[in-house]
């Protein structure tokens, strides 16, 4: 009898013999994830596109690369390819639901590995926690579905890294690879320590060699799967014309979204920089208190697991969770460190939004919840313990129904599709300049939800847009994070020039063929583009060919 872990043998199956069928045991977490996805997305599953902040899906998306840092590589290309098979709005819904299914099934599988006799309830609890928490909710509300592909695949990647085998790891990292740079960075932060620390025994040089031989194949897989965004990201860095504004640290540092300060928010998996991405009601003291209590229980469960069983992935996941929280804390409590790093080398730019790296801590907590529920199961009648599966939802209930309407759908007005057809039907080369000169819009037809300019995704030619970011601070202040695209910086300077100065020549020299303007005074606007030809006029959009 393995006494220290005896409670694991007293779970759903072992105690009353009511073992779930093998199909239910395997598919239960995935089905729970699907149900949670339907509950969380709610109105976002209706007809049309769910458009919010960085989540921009467009009809008939083309295959193309944009200027600037390749944040949407290869996620945009994957969506474009899938949209050749299915309507883009269906692709979006499948991806969003898939996030929940993948996350829940992965957390359930990890719990099953470590609690083989624990029954299905702990697996479902882990699945529910990992698919329904502040991290996933906030990143969904800011529209970072591509990052969440990495988050959702993280449990599978951890299992694969612990077991070894490059093919297995590559398969597990495919969702993150499709997601792009943030998804892969979060995955690398987790997978590499797991691979490095999975081996046991040995010492001195033997130990170092074992770590190296464990980590090298994983590093190779991570590097190869990162190539689609790594190459276009590193070329400007190596050319020294990449820009990563250190002001981004102040703009995107974690913030307190509840009564327990920034650290309390991070520990409860919240703390995103944007106050509009917080789940409504999340800051209620009573709700925040029960979430914090759940966090303490989950951490205790995870630590206990390390003492009594210590699965191969435990040391690496523990290290990744600590490292992730430290990176997040650096932005809030020691901002000079990431500022200095980013100022020294633009390649450190991804450190500015440190809360992203809390993902492995979320996974550690999910496993900890499973351990705690297993112990609960040993002391309680089955129905009482089974009710623990609902706890993650109860401590964040307002994530339901698209966070009570924060997520919803909208149909693009017909004029967007017409403009897209005109531009994409023109074989002549040249970029499209999107105006007004601001990255984010709040269209009335999208319910006033803020969204990245859809023009950035719609056209089969380079789109020049203002990738400088403006973040509001308390008291009406603003933090401006400088543009990253060199061409956007140059064109921004042109547009900021004297109001009467003509733009046609300078824009043509910058390789611009079309200007798409929304909500402008046509007469004033066209007076700056002498010789240009308006090719489409609608209520909202004006398309001009230079």
């Amino acid at each position, binding site marked *: 009898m393995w006494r220290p872990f005896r409670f694991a043998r007293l779970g759903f199956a072992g105690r009353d013999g009511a073992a779930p069928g093998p199909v239910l045991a395997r598919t239960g977490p995935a089905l729970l994830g699907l149900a949670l996805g339907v509950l969380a997305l709610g109105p976002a599953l209706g007809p049309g596109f769910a458009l919010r*902040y960085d989540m921009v899906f467009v009809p008939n998306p083309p295959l193309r690369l944009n200027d600037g840092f390749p944040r949407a590589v290869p996620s945009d290309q994957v969506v474009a390819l899938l949209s050749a098979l299915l309507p883009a709005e269906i692709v979006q819904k499948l991806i969003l639901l898939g996030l929940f299914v993948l996350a829940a099934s992965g957390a359930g599988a990890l719990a099953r590995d470590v609690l083989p006799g624990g029954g299905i309830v702990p697996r479902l609890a882990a699945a529910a926690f990992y698919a329904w928490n502040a991290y996933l909710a906030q990143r969904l509300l*800011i529209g970072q579905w591509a990052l969440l592909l990495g988050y959702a695949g993280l449990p599978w990647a951890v299992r694969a890294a612990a077991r070894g085998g490059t093919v297995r790891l590559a398969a597990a990292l495919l969702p993150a690879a499709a997601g792009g740079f943030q998804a892969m960075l979060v995955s690398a932060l987790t997978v590499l320590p797991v691979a490095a620390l999975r081996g046991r025994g040995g010492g001195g040089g033997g130990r170092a060699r074992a770590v190296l031989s464990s980590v090298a194949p994983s590093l190779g897989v991570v590097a190869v799967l990162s190539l689609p965004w790594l190459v276009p990201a590193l070329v400007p860095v190596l050319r020294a014309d990449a820009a990563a504004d250190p002001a981004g640290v102040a*703009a995107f540092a974690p*913030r307190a979204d509840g009564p327990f300060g920034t650290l309390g928010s991070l520990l409860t998996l919240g703390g995103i*920089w*944007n*106050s*509009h*991405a917080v789940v*409504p*009601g999340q800051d*209620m003291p*009573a*709700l925040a208190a*029960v979430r914090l209590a759940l966090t303490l229980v989950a951490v205790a469960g995870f630590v206990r697991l390390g003492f009594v069983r210590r699965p191969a992935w435990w040391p690496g996941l523990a290290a990744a969770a600590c490292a992730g929280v430290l990176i997040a804390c650096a932005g809030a409590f020691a901002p000079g460190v990431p500022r200095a790093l980013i100022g020294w080398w633009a390649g450190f730019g991804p450190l500015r939004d440190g809360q992203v790296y809390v993902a492995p801590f979320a996974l550690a907590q999910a496993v900890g919840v499973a351990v705690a529920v297993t112990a*609960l199961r040993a*002391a*309680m*009648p089955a129905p*009482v313990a089974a*009710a623990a599966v609902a*706890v993650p*939802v*109860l*401590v964040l*209930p*307002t994530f*339901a129904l698209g966070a*009570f309407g924060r997520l919803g759908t909208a149909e693009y007005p017909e004029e967007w599709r017409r403009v897209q057809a005109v531009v994409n039907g023109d074989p002549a080369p040249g970029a499209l300049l999107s105006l*007004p000169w*601001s*990255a*984010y*819009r*709040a269209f*009335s037809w999208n*319910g*006033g*939800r*803020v969204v990245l300019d859809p023009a950035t995704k719609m056209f089969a030619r380079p789109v020049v847009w203002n990738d400088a*970011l*403006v*973040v*509001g*601070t*308390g008291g009406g202040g*603003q*933090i401006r994070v400088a543009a990253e695209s060199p061409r956007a910086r140059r064109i921004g300077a042109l547009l900021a020039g004297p109001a009467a100065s003509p733009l046609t020549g300078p824009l043509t020299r910058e390789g611009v063929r079309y200007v798409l303007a*929304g*909500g402008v005074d046509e007469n004033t606007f066209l007076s700056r583009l002498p010789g240009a030809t308006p090719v489409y006029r609608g209520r909202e959009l004006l398309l001009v060919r230079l």
Partner: protein
Amino acid sequence: MLKVLAALAVGAVLAGVASVAVVNVAAPTAEPPNKPLYNYGDR
């Protein structure tokens, strides 16, 4: 029995807090702003 009662009490508290949160959030709120341009977000 005591443990079960404690668990039920915790469950009741959770359900109560969740209900209050839902009721608060579901209450009518002002229409979202309809600005043509917007910050990336506000801290």
